[in-house]
Every structure is written in structure tokens, then in C-alpha cells.
């Protein structure tokens, strides 16, 4: 294989693996802040138990997010040095600001959150939790700004030395797709967390329907599905309307539209193939494609044939990744409505079918996030910066053997880390909040390293 393909594979693998953890910890940090705030306000012990329980899972996930994130700040240079040099005058400062305004804040106060329980008062501890939560959101602002610049670049010019140069920081950072993509990502993170919390709570309730903390947490999670999932659909639809204007070839790939025409059909399933510049088969609903993408069943929507073959993104991946994301999103809305109805009818824990469904949907948020990012990034191809720089022109002068070696290293190490991390998180989830809190020895502070440790064998 060529170095460029290997570098793309490596970047896709390392970033997809990395995004799992920030998606979870952005939501979880906010959830922890809410739990600790409610605990301080109401003094209800259930909130404290939930906080301690989810803090442990947060610590595990955050650690994995940090170490896989360090990789990203070097990989731009190791594998995409031509891109880095070219785009650094615009994106460089955004990444530097992410470190300066978010990473130090998160990493410093995470220490207070985890190990500072008895060294600071409850007010200061709550402040630390809030600062970590705010840090995760600030981090999302900068990274979405940088990525959105690559999707819808603005506020720049081509400099005399062949690099980009920023002409307006406001325009470059708050570029056209930034607002809706930021909202989409944060809502996605909240859904990821809500689904994980819901699944862990439902799992406990399947064994013991009266477990108080899990009943509380399941209701909080259902509230999130019921409100956030429909909101996410609206934000996604709004973003899609902009993609039609800003990145028409991406939209055409998402819907597998080949011909530019009015009254496009909506393809529920299809097998799009770039070789024949068409769909090998599809199951479609007439006119609905134009209605969904343009808000008007009679609207003309651009198809992929309007672009030269070398300017078309890989259609199959984008089409199906989008359907996975939206399909799961609709399932989340369904779960939210079902759960809300059950709460109204006297308690979701009484329906074992619902509890099983909630467990089954636990990983759905993660899958949807990876699918969504696949749509965004693969749909942008063949450009690394939309209509400014091609991916093929961005790669470092490193040989295929070196990239093969590092890719193999990432596959092996990430497999080990993922297996162990998932094992430890699932083990905690299976024990549940009550078991955790009661097993805590009185002389060990919750959140302390020794508080986590099993007794020495």
C-alpha cells in the first residue's frame, strides 16, 4: 500500500478511537456537575452515590481520552506535514488556544476532582467539577472551529509564500458551518452519556427493580433522550440544509443522488457505485429526497455527476454511515418517547422490555458519533480543506514502511487499551452505584486512589 493510503487509515483509526472518549466525557463531566450540584442543594445521598459511581467511570474514560488525544497533536506533523505547514497560519492558533484555554484547565482540576476530596471543601470540589465540565466544552469549541474551517473555510487568503494567511479571525473561527456543527457535537455528547447512563441503570434494574439510585438515574437519562434526541434531529436537519449550499457533493453522496434534477427520490437503502456512476439498486420514495434536503418536494438538487469523477467523495461509505447515524437517532427518539410514556404510566422499571431496549441502546451513541464523523470527513473528500487543498497533496514525506509500522503499533496498543478499558468500565457498571458506595471503606475517601483499589492479595 502507498504511504498516503496508510496515513489516511492511521488517521481515521486513531481519530475514530479518540473521539469515543471525548464524546463520552463531555457529557459525563456536565452530568457530574449536575449530580454534585443537586447533591449540595438537596443533600440527598442518592446524588452523592451516583456522583461517586460515575466519577470512577469518568476517570477511566478521561485517561483514555487524554493519551489518545496527545497522539493527535503530533500526528498532524508526522503524517500530514505539508498540510500542517500550509494551514498553520489559520488552524495553528486554534489548536494552541485549545491547549491554553481547555487542556490545562481540565487536567489540573481533574486532579482536584479525583484526589482532592478531603483536601478541599464541598464548594471548592464542586467548582473543580464545574471547571472540568466547562473545560471539555471549551475544548469542543476550538476543535470544532478547526474542523469546520476545513469544511467551510472562511476569513483567509492565499499568502505570498504559498501558505494560507488569516484575514479575519472571527470569520475563520466562526466559519459558516461552525455554529450548527458545534451544537450537533455537544448534543451528540450529551446523548452518548445519557444512553450509557440509561443502559447501566437499566442493567441494574433488570436484576433489582427497586434499586433507588438506578431508578433515579434512569429517569434523568429518559428526560435527556426525550428532549435532546428530537432537538438533535432538528439541528442535524438545519446542518443538512447548509451542507446542500456549502458542500453540494457531500450532500449528493449522503443521499446517493447522481443526476441533478427536481423531485429527487429518497433512497431508503441503495448500493451506490462510483464505477457505474449510479446506484446498482435502491428502494426509494418518490419526491421525498428533495423535500428532506431542500424543504420542497419540487426543488432541484445537485447530483454527483455535476462534479468531475476525481472530485466525488466515496459514496457508499458516506451514504451508509449517514443512514446508521440517522437510524440510531430515530431509535433514540423512540426510546425517549417510550420512556416518557412509561414514567407517566407509573415507572419505566416495571417494563422489562423497555429496560432491555435501554441496555441494547447503550452503545448506540458511540456508534452514531463515529458514523456522523465518517459522514463529515469522508464526505469532504477528495479535499482535506474544502476546495482549497486536496488530501493527496497534504501528506508527509515519510515512507510506507514507517507508516505500516506505526499503524500496526496503534492497532495492537489500542486493542489492548480498549479491551481493558471496556472490561473495567463494564465491571463497574455491573456492580452499580449502590454496591460501589457501600463497598467504600470508611477510612478511604471516595475518589481516592486507595478508594478504588482492591485489597492487596
Amino acid at each position, binding site marked *: 500500500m502507498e504511504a498516503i493510503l496508510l496515513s489516511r487509515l492511521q488517521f481515521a483509526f486513531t481519530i475514530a478511537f479518540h473521539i469515543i472518549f471525548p464524546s463520552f466525557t463531555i457529557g459525563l463531566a456536565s452530568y457530574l456537575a449536575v449530580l454534585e450540584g443537586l447533591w449540595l442543594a438537596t443533600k440527598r445521598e442518592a446524588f452523592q452515590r451516583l456522583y461517586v459511581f460515575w466519577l470512577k467511570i469518568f476517570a*477511566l474514560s478521561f*485517561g*483514555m481520552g*487524554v*493519551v*489518545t*488525544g*496527545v*497522539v493527535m*497533536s*503530533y500526528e498532524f*506533523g*508526522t503524517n500530514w*506535514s505539508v498540510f*500542517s*505547514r500550509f494551514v*498553520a*497560519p489559520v488552524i*495553528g*492558533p486554534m*489548536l*494552541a*488556544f485549545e*491547549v*491554553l*484555554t481547555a*487542556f*490545562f484547565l481540565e*487536567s*489540573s482540576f*481533574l*486532579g482536584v476532582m479525583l*484526589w*482532592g476530596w478531603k*483536601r*478541599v471543601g464541598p464548594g471548592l470540589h464542586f467548582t473543580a467539577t464545574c471547571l472540568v465540565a466547562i473545560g471539555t466544552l471549551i475544548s469542543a469549541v476550538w476543535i470544532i472551529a478547526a474542523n469546520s474551517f476545513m469544511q467551510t473555510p472562511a476569513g483567509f487568503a492565499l499568502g505570498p509564500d504559498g*501558505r494560507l*494567511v*488569516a484575514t479575519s479571525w472571527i470569520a475563520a473561527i466562526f466559519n459558516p458551518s461552525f455554529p450548527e456543527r458545534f451544537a450537533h457535537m455537544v448534543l451528540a455528547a450529551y446523548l452518548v452519556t445519557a444512553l450509557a447512563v440509561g443502559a447501566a441503570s437499566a442493567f441494574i434494574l433488570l436484576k433489582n427493580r427497586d434499586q433507588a439510585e438506578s431508578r433515579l438515574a434512569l429517569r434523568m437519562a429518559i428526560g435527556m433522550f426525550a428532549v435532546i434526541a428530537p432537538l438533535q434531529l432538528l439541528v442535524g436537519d438545519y446542518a443538512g440544509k447548509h451542507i446542500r449550499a456549502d458542500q453540494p457533493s457531500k450532500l449528493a453522496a449522503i443521499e446517493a443522488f447522481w443526476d441533478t434534477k427536481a423531485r429527487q427520490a429518497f433512497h431508503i437503502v441503495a448500493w451506490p457505485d462510483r464505477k457505474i456512476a449510479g446506484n446498482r439498486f435502491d428502494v426509494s420514495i418518490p419526491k421525498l429526497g428533495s423535500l428532506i434536503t431542500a424543504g420542497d418536494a419540487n426543488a432541484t438538487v445537485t447530483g454527483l455527476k455535476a462534479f468531475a469523477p476525481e472530485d466525488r467523495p466515496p459514496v457508499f461509505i458516506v451514504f451508509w454511515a449517514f443512514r446508521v447515524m440517522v437510524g440510531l437517532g430515530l431509535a433514540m427518539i423512540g426510546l425517549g418517547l417510550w420512556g416518557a410514556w412509561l414514567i407517566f404510566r407509573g415507572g419505566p422499571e416495571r417494563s422489562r422490555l423497555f429496560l432491555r431496549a435501554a441496555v441494547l441502546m447503550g452503545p448506540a451513541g458511540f456508534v452514531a458519533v463515529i458514523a456522523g464523523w465518517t459522514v463529515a470527513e469522508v464526505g469532504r473528500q477528495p479535499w482535506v480543506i474544502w476546495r482549497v487543498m486536496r488530501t493527496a497533496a497534504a501528506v*508527509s*514525506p*515519510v515512507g510506507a514502511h*514507517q507508516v505500516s*509500522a*506505526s499503524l500496526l*503499533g496503534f492497532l495492537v*496498543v*489500542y486493542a489492548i*487499551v480498549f479491551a*481493558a478499558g471496556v472490561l*473495567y468500565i463494564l*465491571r*463497574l457498571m455491573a456492580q452499580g452505584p449502590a454496591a460501589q458506595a457501600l463497598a467504600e471503606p470508611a*477510612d478511604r*475517601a471516595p475518589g*481516592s486512589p*486507595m478508594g*478504588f*483499589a*482492591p485489597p492487596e492479595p
Partner: protein
Amino acid sequence: MNGLDLPLIAVVVIAVAVLLYVLLDGFDLGVGILFPLARSPGDRDLMMTAIAPYWDGNETWLVLGGGGLFALFPGAYAILMPAFYLPLMGMLLALILRGVAFEFRLHGRRRGKRLWTIAFAAGSIGAAFAQGLVLGGFVQGVKVTNGAFAGGPFDWATPYSLLTALGLVAGYALLGATWLMIKTDEGLHGDARRWTGAAVVAVVALLAAVSLATLGVDPRVAARWGLTGGAIDMTHLAPRLAIPALGGVGLALIFVGLRRGSHVLPFAGALVVFLSGYLGLGTSFFPAIVPYDVGFREAANTPGALAFVLIGVVVMLPLILGYTAFVYWLFRGKVASDAGSH
């Protein structure tokens, strides 16, 4: 920002970030390097507790070093990253294994805990060694054509870089051992003292070897230090002699600290030794940012980007240093005596 020498300010910022990274992550990597020497699982838990609240913040300086180089000197970032592709990837993988070990060790049962204990030690040693290889490859010079890396994948693999790698591992072990002297008492403190003694001997030997070898890596380095063609030019050498003298002061602090039974002085001495080594290497190639052909000015980002980032640095850095200091102050004191209370 008119009238300010932005590239010069930026190079100071990068230099300070890298120095702070080396000093801070140095001590927690060092504790990992010393992990195999611990007498008991209990001692290893204490060693972990002595760095657990800090390691994440410390490693963030590495992200600032990488991200900062990207933002401030993309010309250097785009050359150095491909040039040191393999050792950098090795460093990142090693840092992943040791980074997750902080949490995973607490959740693993018997076999899992042993696995992550090994991963923490091996990852710390591996990351330090890989950083030393990058350092050696960097000081020896990078082949550049038209602003891009033009060398081979193993240009960094030389006896000199092996020497710097060993030197850095020993140096981090010294920082780790002296840090443990501050944070522990009783049995583990005695061990840390002995480790400090052994590490300081290794550091003196390797630092001397690296210093002499550095004079040989490029004639321009020897000329910097006033050593050309067998003659000694005191106008170049004399001012630079302050740097090895500073190293001597650091070593003296360590020795005096050990003799007097001080818990804090050896760590302070180790910091001074590192500072001297850092300045010694820096003065050998500055103002090059990619030795020896690319100066920091030609590698700098556009004036607009530099100004924007530096405004952020001026606003944020005091805050960052402030709450970093707060965290160190909050977790002050011995870990042995109050392991149960935090």
C-alpha cells in the same frame, strides 16, 4: 504589537514550554522508570500516589510543545515531525500504555494489576528513551531541502542519540528519585535516597559524555564553544562556562542535600542540573530551530498568527501557572503519612 520581536518572543515561549515539560513530566516519568526497583506492591502504590494528581497536567506541557510548535513555528514542526517519525510514534505508544496504567492499575485484579504495573514501568522507560533519541537526532542535525525533511527514516539512530537517550533516562530517574524523597518518608524515603545516589552518579557520567560528544557532532557546535582547529577562543568559551558551572551548583545541591538529610534540596539540585543541560544544548545551536540550517525566524508562522497566539499566551499563561501552583500546593506533604486521607 508593532515594535515587538514576535518570533523571538515565540521562541522563548516554546523553549519555556519544552523546559517545563522536561522538568515536570520528567519527575513522573522518572518515578515510572524506578518502578521495577520498588520493594513491595505497597511501595508501588505509594509511588503512584505521589504523582497521580499531577501527571495529567504535566503531560499537557507536551501537548503545548507539539501544538505550540505547530502554531508558532510550523516550518519547524513540518520538518521535525516526519524526521523523527519512528521515535515519536514509539514515544506516543509508550505514553499511552503508561498513561492508562494510572487508572487501570486500580481496577485490575491480580493479573491485570501486574500487567499494568509492567506497562507503567515499560511505558515510562520507553517514552523517556524515545524522547532521548529525538533529542540526540535533533542536536546532531536534520537534513532539509526546500523547507522539507529530506533525510532517511533512521537518520536519528546513531551512537550519539543512544548516548542522549541513556542520559535522559538517567536524568528522569534522578528527578523521579528526588521527587520521591520529597513525597515519602520511612522505608520508601530511604530507598529514594539510595536511588538518588545511584542516579546522580549515572547522570554525572552521561552528562559529561554527552557534553563532550556534542562538541563533536558538528563543527559549528565546537565553534560556538570557542573550540576551532585545536585553538581555544576565550571570547566564545568564557561566557558559556557559566552553564557547566550552573550544572556544578546543581550537583553540589544534590550532594549537600543527601549529606544533610534534606528532603527538598536534592530535587531542587536536579532541576538546576537539568536547566544547565538544557541551556548547554540550546546555546549550541540557537538561533537554529531545526539544526543547523533553519533559523527560528524563517520557520515562524505569519505575524498575524504569532500575534494572536501570543496574546492568548499573555492572558492564559499566568492563569495556568497559577492554578498549576494551586494543585501542587493542595497536594503538598508526604503521601505515606496520609495515604488514607486523600
